[in-house]
């Protein structure tokens, strides 16, 4: 046996043994089953559903209980929000595609009713000092947590998934008081909780699968703030 062959075989044996030790890093079966059956159990990924998405029945049941109150509250707030109400100019009996409202305490409430004018919403959020990248997908979409889910111009922040989830919860507590309506989704943002260098990625899309009517959902993630990604 040549020295080279011996060396190779030794490396291969070491490799087999080393790889075997990684088995202990395996996720638990319970966790995997939970994730498979309930996409909401996924880490990092946070989805705000609109009504009509069967996969969110548990959450929707709680949220829908407040739909009537939510509808009234939104209608009043929109009516009185004046120039702060932005988006596509509504027809007389039609709400704006989206609304950005600053409420007492500096909190910002974003209501999305139609997947139109993402650029306008993005500009409005940035004007309200929220470094954001907004994307609307008008076609059906299955959300993913992989980094390819964020825009190419953006980069994921350097933090653990746990830290990411914790920070997202501080910045965008979910579900908020008006998390879901029959045809809208509401995202509450606390700008003061956004650390320097961090931006928000907000993606609204037609919910899938099994969505009927105009149901859509929202996916959020954190990104590194940059001129190209979040405008600053």
């Amino acid at each position, binding site marked *: 046996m040549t020295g080279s062959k011996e060396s190779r075989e030794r490396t291969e044996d070491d*490799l087999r043994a080393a790889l075997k030790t*990684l*088995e202990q890093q*395996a996720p638990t079966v319970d966790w995997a089953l939970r994730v*498979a059956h309930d996409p909401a159990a996924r880490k990092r990924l946070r989805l705000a559903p609109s009504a009509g998405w069967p996969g969110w029945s548990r959450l929707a049941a709680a949220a829908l209980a407040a739909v009537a109150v939510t509808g009234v509250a939104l209608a009043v707030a929109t009516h009185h929000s004046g120039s702060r109400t932005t988006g596509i100019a509504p027809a007389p009996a039609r709400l704006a595609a989206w609304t950005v409202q600053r409420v007492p305490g500096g909190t910002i409430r974003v209501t999305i009713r139609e997947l139109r004018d993402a650029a306008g919403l993005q500009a409005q959020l940035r004007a309200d000092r929220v470094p954001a990248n907004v994307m609307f997908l008008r076609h059906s979409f299955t959300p993913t947590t992989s980094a*390819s889910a964020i825009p190419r111009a953006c980069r994921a922040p350097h933090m653990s998934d746990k830290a990411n989830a914790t920070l997202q919860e501080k910045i965008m507590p979910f579900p908020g008081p008006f998390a879901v309506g029959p045809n809208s989704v509401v995202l509450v943002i606390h700008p003061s909780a956004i650390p320097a260098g961090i931006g928000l990625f907000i993606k609204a899309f037609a919910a899938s*699968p099994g969505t009927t009517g105009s149901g859509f959902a929202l996916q959020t993630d954190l990104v590194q703030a940059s001129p190209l990604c979040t405008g600053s």
Partner: protein
Amino acid sequence: MRFEELAARRLPAVLRFAAVLTGDRASAEDVVQEVLIRVHQRWDKIGGLDQPELYIRKMIVNEFISSRRKLPRLVPSGRGSEVDDRVTSDYAARHAERDALLGELAKLPRRQRAVLVLRYYEGLSDTAIAAILGCAQGTVRSSASRALATLRIELSGPHPAPAMPEERKP
């Protein structure tokens, strides 16, 4: 086969495979969660395959290779100057070498790492690996050869065996 049947019989092995492929639990969870949700949604088709488990492994490999996210990987926990041969048992020495090897493995391009895991952990033939990766057998062989060469070179280069006692600093 029902999804629950596959989960009961095969899921533990699939999860171990994902962990070995990615190198750490956080990365394994990232990959597995994406794949399992898609599997569950498409089970009516995947469940009808001859070997659904093989298809799931293929999905895991593809998700791992295509993922752009760089999560922390295992790296050698000790430098040579911190290791004292005089008090290092055989077991500890082997453990340090293994850590070093895993550290080098984590630096490999993902496709090369996948080839090594499929060959040396799963024990698959180059033909089977080529089918999973969607490439030619020659590509599998050259990837494996390049990866092994890198491991040997790296192990004898930048990360030498534990230093001799006289090289230690106070």
